[in-house]
């Protein structure tokens, strides 16, 4: 036996004698309570977590490296597969970064359609999170209601994009194809449809006493912690910081639209839940205004067939459903990117889990993990 192993044995024996022995619990990568293939190595002290170590990389697909061996346009399908729940936002960031670097004009109609589809996508993403989160907490019914509502969004987007999840709808300088009057009417009907449904969710879930007792004061991630780990999106807004890329670094036509940034000061799981529920309402407001303002006109500007970007370094950030998503593209003047760097929100949001979950009950930690709204392909990318 080696010296280190003997020392570890001795330490364990001492811990046992003092009654503070720990054990390692492996959660995932296929545990039904974790979303996707996230693995958590939990060092447990009885029912309490002494240390939670996230193990990432199970579905790493080399998206960044793939960007370096294909043309600018050929990377487009990848962008909707990094975070498959908010595909529109990710495509938006990449497309807008290339547009910024190449100084391409985007027609106004396209910008409005981008805002409408992005916000629809945000709602559908939050609805999936809502259903899955409630499932984590042991409530099955809301999932079915949420998926029923989400189906309406998917039908709408499928009508114009041709796909239900990996839309790949934006193009450099505009859109893949134009929206029709029926889509605009459908979007308006959907806004009218979802408002009473959100009221129903409030009655059914938000005001439910079991639900509130499960979340109040659980998994507190305050503003300071969020800042240190770079957490953004609803996690940061749930800690009382009104940071939203749509306001902090305005893009598309967001400056023309009137919406609030919902915040809750407490930083617990319930605060993050409430922020997302209010965000859905704000998204409905944005969609409504955009539908009123959308002009007629072209949906795509003229773009050279072989796109070559001038040498340089360009960044573009958007507010995705899970937080700040940023694309950094480096061009060396060829038709192929030199570097595509993706800054994904789920990665930062997961990072704070290790520190914040110390000393929590295992069941509470799962509620906390659910409230972070992680998409694992987004972490591993």
């Amino acid at each position: 036996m080696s010296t280190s192993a003997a020392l570890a044995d001795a330490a364990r024996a001492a811990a046992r004698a003092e009654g503070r022995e720990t054990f390692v619990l492996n959660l995932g990568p296929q545990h039904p309570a974790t979303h996707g293939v996230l693995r958590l190595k939990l060092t447990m002290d009885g029912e309490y977590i002494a240390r939670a170590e996230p193990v990432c990389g199970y579905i790493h697909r080399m998206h960044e490296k793939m960007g370096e061996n294909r043309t600018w346009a050929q990377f487009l399908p990848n962008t909707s597969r990094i975070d498959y729940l908010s595909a529109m936002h990710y495509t938006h960031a990449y497309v807008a970064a290339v547009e910024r670097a190449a100084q391409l004009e985007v027609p106004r109609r396209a910008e409005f359609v981008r805002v409408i589809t992005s916000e629809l996508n945000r709602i559908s993403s939050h609805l999936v999170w809502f259903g899955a989160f409630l499932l984590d907490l042991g409530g099955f019914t809301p999932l079915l209601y949420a998926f029923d509502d989400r189906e309406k969004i998917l039908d709408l987007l499928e009508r114009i994009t041709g796909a239900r999840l990996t839309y790949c709808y934006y193009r450099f300088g505009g859109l893949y194809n134009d929206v029709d009057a029926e889509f605009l009417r459908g979007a308006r009907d959907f806004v009218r449809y979802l408002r009473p449904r959100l009221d129903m969710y409030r009655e059914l879930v938000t005001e439910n006493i079991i639900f509130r007792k499960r979340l109040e004061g659980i998994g507190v991630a305050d503003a300071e912690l969020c800042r240190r780990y770079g957490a953004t999106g609803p996690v940061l807004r749930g800690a009382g910081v009104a940071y939203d890329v749509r306001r902090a670094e305005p893009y598309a036509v967001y400056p023309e639209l009137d919406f609030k940034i919902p915040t809750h000061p407490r930083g617990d799981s319930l605060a993050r839940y409430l922020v997302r529920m209010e965000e859905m309402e704000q998204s409905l407001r944005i969609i409504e205004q955009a539908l009123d303002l959308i002009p007629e006109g072209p949906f795509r500007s003229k773009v050279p067939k072989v796109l070559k970007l001038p040498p340089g370094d360009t960044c573009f950030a958007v507010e995705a459903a899970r937080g700040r998503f940023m694309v950094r593209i480096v061009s060396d003047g060829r038709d192929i990117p030199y570097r595509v760097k993706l800054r994904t929100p789920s990665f930062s949001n997961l990072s704070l889990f290790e520190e914040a979950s110390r000393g929590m009950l295992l069941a509470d930690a799962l509620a906390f993990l659910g409230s972070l709204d992680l998409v694992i392909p987004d972490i591993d990318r």
Partner: protein
Amino acid sequence: MKTPLRELWTGFRSLLTGMRVTLTQFFKPPVTVPYPYATLPIPERYRGHIELVRDPETGMSLCVACKSCEKACPSGCIVVEGIKREGDKKKSPTVFTVDFTRCSLCGSCVEVCPTEALRFSRRYNLAGTDREAYFLDLLKRLQAQAASTPTPATKA
């Protein structure tokens, strides 16, 4: 004493509200479709795998074997070969295959096609038991379609 009692009351009320919501849902028509006995309509712009478009006059493919789609494809799953036949003004394809196992349905090929010879099929029942079923020969598919729905030219 007062707070636990109030909590008991609000808790009880919230449970009743939940029951009311689920009960009203009970009397609503089902939102699901009993697939495979019924199917939903496939939208016009549905992005299935690609297929060749026939020239309505000649019944032949509109493809000129320019290989734009082959170059645009991010996953390199399209193979096109073409020759210039005697008496024709343009090239015509002799090989047009798609490796559907690698296709990501992005639609770049349809977008770059200069003659609009490609379109998305509306096929969505794509389950299969062997890999070979996904190596699609689009020229064969076109001929099969021509046999089932003749155009004026092929009828004559």
